[in-house]
């Protein structure tokens, strides 16, 4: 297959070229799946963690092949913010920058606790892949122009 440097087609090239790598750690499978609605505005704030959303979407799309149910934003948020009601409330009350910091810690904690997922052979934290999936789920790809920094 020939790939040309157009973002959408490149995307498709990536998707079509990827073999099925379906591994989710047992820890990942047992996560709570409560749905959380924080509003698209707040969710978009989370996705701003990434300077380059297109890259996040590429990783997120690959992850969503393994966990298609997480295309549902509220379900995805529920899994991202699992950890109890108190934690969720603290998170919701925090400033966006503080929320991003909490998520970064959660990524580190994922690695420490073996909450990892293999995406195309890469060993990634569940939180970071879900954040990438969030970028996809929010459908920001179509609305974004000129944010690619690479």
């Amino acid at each position: 297959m020939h790939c040309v440097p157009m973002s959408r087609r490149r995307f498709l090239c990536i998707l079509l070229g990827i073999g099925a790598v379906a591994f989710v750690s047992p820890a990942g499978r047992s996560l709570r799946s409560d749905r959380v609605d924080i509003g698209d505005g707040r969710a978009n704030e989370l996705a701003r963690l990434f300077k380059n959303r297109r890259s996040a979407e590429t990783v997120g799309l690959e992850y969503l092949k393994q966990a298609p149910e997480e295309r549902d934003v509220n379900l995805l948020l529920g899994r991202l913010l699992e950890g109890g009601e108190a934690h969720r409330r603290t998170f919701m009350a925090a400033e966006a920058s503080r929320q991003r910091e909490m998520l970064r810690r959660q990524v580190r904690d994922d690695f420490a606790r073996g909450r990892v997922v293999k995406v195309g052979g890469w060993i990634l934290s569940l939180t970071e892949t879900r954040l990438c999936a969030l970028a996809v789920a929010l459908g920001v790809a179509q609305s974004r122009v000129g944010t690619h920094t690479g």
Partner: protein
Amino acid sequence: MAWFQGGKENMFIDVRTLPNETEIRSDVCIVGAGAAGITLAREFVGGSLDVCLLESGGFEFDSKTQSLYQGENVGFPYYDLELLRLRYFGGTTNHWGGSCRPLDEIDFERRDWVPHSGWPFDKSLLDPFYRRAHKVCELGPYDYEPDAWETETDHHLPLKTDRVKTTMGLQSPPTRFGRVYREEIRAAENLRTYLYANVVDIETRPSSQKVSRLRVATLEGHRFWVSARIFILATGAIENARLLLSSNKTQKEGLGNEHDLVGRYFMEHLSVPGALLLPSDPSLRTGLYSAKQVKGVTGEGFLTLTAETLRREELLNVRALLRTASPQELTRNVSGWTVSAERILKEGRAGNLSSAFIKDLWNVITDIDEVAIYSYRKLVRPAHGVLSLYYHIENAPNSESRVSLTSEVDQLGMQRVRLAWRFGDLERRTLTRTNEIIGEELGRVGIGRIMEIQNDAGSGWPVGLRGAWHQMGTTRMDSDFKRGVVNGDCRVHGISNLYLAGSSVFPSSGYTEPTLTIVALSLRLAYHVKEVMK
């Protein structure tokens, strides 16, 4: 029958100049002048024992002699057996890379999850000999902690964890034993070295409890005998087994083989590209993990799993060497699910992978790991600095991994060998879990993410898996004669005057190069023989 004994012939002797059917007599006969044989011989220099050292070759490589190593492979694809060992004075140290490290404490332990593991003694017994082996191999202090090699810029990865640690391997010049110790051996008054002398049979008394003499032959057709009070075979892991199996006149299954152990439990280290490491920060300093010299000693850092992790996870011992990933590795392992191999190669050669998934992932993890290189990222095209994690994995002792004899014979009439190198689930699980554990630890401290190397559809193992040129096992050591060919003193069970030296006696192998342990065991064996013969 003419015979030679000790005294004035303290020299190297070309046995082709001796009368046919000569009988050479000595107190101790050492067969093989490689790392083990030369180390043993040197230990007797200046002593009261008369020693003869038999070497199959001369002082230079000779293809006819080398071809005596020919054999067939029937297990996991392995190297041409004629290529790996060298059959002339100095043995395989003539092309040895020089990497040194003692086995770890855990390698000596009997581990429940590794069948047939465990040495008859622990590492502390060998430590004094390891220290002395350092001198033999021209190494520096007996110290494998990374501190001495750390500088302000080159330090160990900050894995504050009890799961993964950094440790060191040291580099011998490398010592070419045949060159470095040749003059010492030539000048020794109580030591004679016989060149072009190939042992073709070990003659035992009818009871088989004692070796009486060795039948020795040359490629030119000379035949003679060597008698001694003690015999030590130091011909390498494959040849030691071959000699015992071939010496079957009084015991048809071969010497020391009453329990069908000789030749079995052959081990190699699995040398395998296991993962790619994509650092969050392309300027990650990994200088400690390349060979570097400090105070005249060259060391190289690598990652290992701690003993606690090995126990908890029930894994084999393993180390990860960090290397800059080659374009070929990237092509082979990344292109399958990103863009065309041609494109990756092109970009790899250009020093970047700008349009591949790898860059998208890198963008993600630099954000996640908060690497402060945004200006850098805007100004230059990132090269990513992808590293390769190259593993050396212990080969679990396996009775089906073995050396046996074929019906084909060599120029001397000795049966050639058949090697079946085997490994399985435990090695596979070690590879998989090591990737996961190291991946988790690197992610935890924000160093980067790793990608497992994909398995080859045919072999089920990553492309590039091969042996590390480390042949071990085949005459394993165990104090129980039903489980080992030699006892803790390296003496063949049931034979009072036959000893084996070298890596053939290793009951388990760890991940490290065997040479330092071969030398340490040889020093210990020489000490033992001197005590026995007092």
